[in-house]
């Protein structure tokens, strides 16, 4: 079910002997501000690879990330990172990299100085080398010795990422890191994240851009109203939503014949014929998937397209948020 990167990473961490224990464990955690409950009895684990944290504005994502990074206290429950508490164990910081949406960088410093400062704060042994490596990684070597105030928005984002990565953190927490980034910066950033994940790191990323999360993360956590509404592979989440009939669009050479054949199947609720396109509604998508090709073959119909219409992360998100 999971994508290849995820699978690779899981294998790698097995080899490291670090599998089993999750990197982040959120156990029955709640957070309230006065009478406002921001996060309510949420439990999940985060393991190596990329995990997407999704939810509408105000759902509690940022509060959750702040508790995981130790910036906010939990009102109830327990957050464990690398087996320790992020609130009380400062040593953990050397293994965590954090990048949040609105964050100042020091405009008067050069990019290199800024990254070196971050390295020093994390007590990296060879500051100069770590900074150079990190700056190379985000492709900013040419501009590294200019003050940050001369940088464009995209470059600022990259230099902050370099500072986030300078101590080679095993766990990366990214809160809407790409707001305002242009298409090319997004592509580069995605490639970088996949590369970091394939090195065995754990990445927890919150984003509103679902197409992107769909490309990156094999596992998603969906928070709605402070509660965990769903977690896992989003195809599996979609299949678990069995009260929502699946829509599948089918293209073939003889739609009327195939429609007649499909309507006889137990798995099919309805078939809609629209020019040369069939839209099939099914509550038992597994059965439909198993028998579709058989039906077409039996009828001698040439199948040229089968597309599930509502199992994108976006429709899954919509279903769960509106629930």
């Amino acid at each position, binding site marked *: 079910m999971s994508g290849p990167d995820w699978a690779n990473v899981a294998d790698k961490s097995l080899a490291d002997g670090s599998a089993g224990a999750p990197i982040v464990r959120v156990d029955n955690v709640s957070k309230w501000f006065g009478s406002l409950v921001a996060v309510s009895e949420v439990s999940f684990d985060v393991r190596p690879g990329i995990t997407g944290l999704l939810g509408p504005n105000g759902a509690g994502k940022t509060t959750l990330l702040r508790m995981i990074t130790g910036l906010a206290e939990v009102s109830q429950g327990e957050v464990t990172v690398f087996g320790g508490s992020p609130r009380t164990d400062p040593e953990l910081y050397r293994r965590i990299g954090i990048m949040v949406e609105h964050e100042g960088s020091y405009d008067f410093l050069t990019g290199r100085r800024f990254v070196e400062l971050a390295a020093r704060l994390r007590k990296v042994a060879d500051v100069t080398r770590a900074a150079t490596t990190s700056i190379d990684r985000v492709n900013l070597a040419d501009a590294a010795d200019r003050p940050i105030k001369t940088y464009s928005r995209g470059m600022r984002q990259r230099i902050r990422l370099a500072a986030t990565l300078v101590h080679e953190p095993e766990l990366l927490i990214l809160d809407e890191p790409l707001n305002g980034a242009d*298409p090319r910066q997004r592509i580069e950033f995605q490639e970088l994240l996949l590369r970091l994940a394939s090195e065995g790191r754990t990445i927890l990323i919150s984003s509103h851009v679902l197409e992107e999360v769909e490309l990156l993360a094999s596992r998603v956590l969906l928070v709605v109203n402070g509660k965990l509404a769903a977690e896992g592979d989003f195809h599996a989440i979609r299949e678990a939503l069995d009260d929502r009939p699946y829509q599948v669009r089918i293209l073939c050479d003889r739609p009327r014949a195939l429609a007649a054949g499909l309507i006889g199947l137990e798995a099919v609720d309805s078939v809609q014929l629209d020019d040369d396109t069939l839209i099939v509604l099914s509550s038992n998508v597994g059965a439909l998937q198993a028998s579709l090709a058989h039906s077409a*073959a039996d009828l001698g119909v040439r199948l040229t397209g089968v597309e599930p219409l509502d199992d994108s992360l976006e429709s899954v998100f919509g279903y769960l*948020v509106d629930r």
Partner: protein
Amino acid sequence: MARRIATYDLRVEILLRAEKLTKRYGSVIALDEVSFEIGGTITGLLGPNGAGKSTAIKLFLGLTEPTSGRAEVLGQDAGRDEQVRARLGYMPEHDCLPSAVSATEFLTHMAETSGLPPRHARVRAADTLRHVGLFEERYRPMGGYSTGMKQRVKLAQTLVHDPVLVLLDEPTAGLDPTGREEMLALIRKTHREFGISLVMSSHLMGDVERTCERVLVLENGSVLEEGETSTFTEASETLYIEVTARRSELIAALAARDVKATEEGSSLVVDSVSGEDYDRIRDAIVAANAPLRRLAPRRRTLTELFQSETNDAEDAEDEGIA
């Protein structure tokens, strides 16, 4: 004055026209002799940061003079007369709503600043707010609005004076998925039901693919691509097959039928598929008894427009804007 505005030919097919349009800021060339036309549809204005999109918008709004060339709006020179803006709408990316006044009050005022007499302004404000889906909330101060509600008011102020063309700057930036979908639906509705044309800049290619009928891609102050969105997302002859189980059996069954499939992610990919290949693939699926989830040609995406370029070009551009 009012009579003169009414003489614009609002049936012109070309709403915006750039003719060898050039804009320099000191030594930085924001737009370099670009020529293009934008007609009555929803057009996506794409390009990396600093590609010249904002400069183009400013030129068409008549807020800056071209260094050379011509920016034409509704058939006349954009910089010639601010009256043409009575027929345009613009929605900035950044916040732009005063917090102390209500949406009704604000929209009425915006309609008046677009030249509508007060009694019409009030009616148009109420109607427009209803069209963008703002109801009881419209009498409360806007400071207390959610992001989604603010976006609606921001869009409403572009529509309240019934413009011919609306320019939207990153209309979905910072919105959550639900808010984004609502915004895009409103944009489509604005075109289909209200008959208003729109140009929207966006960094999110998914938004553009779902919303815009045409795209114009700027890069380094020049036109990189332009055309119907569908030409950029057309199907190729490469077929993706996704099964939920028995993948290796399917590969074997395909191979037995002389169909070469390679694995890519969770899919199997078959190149140059046509005619009877589809039957062979169907039969292979039946033979392997694999549950078929998806069988679809690979589509190009707008994102690919930006995939091939090297990083050097981007850095040069970043420096240009800085």
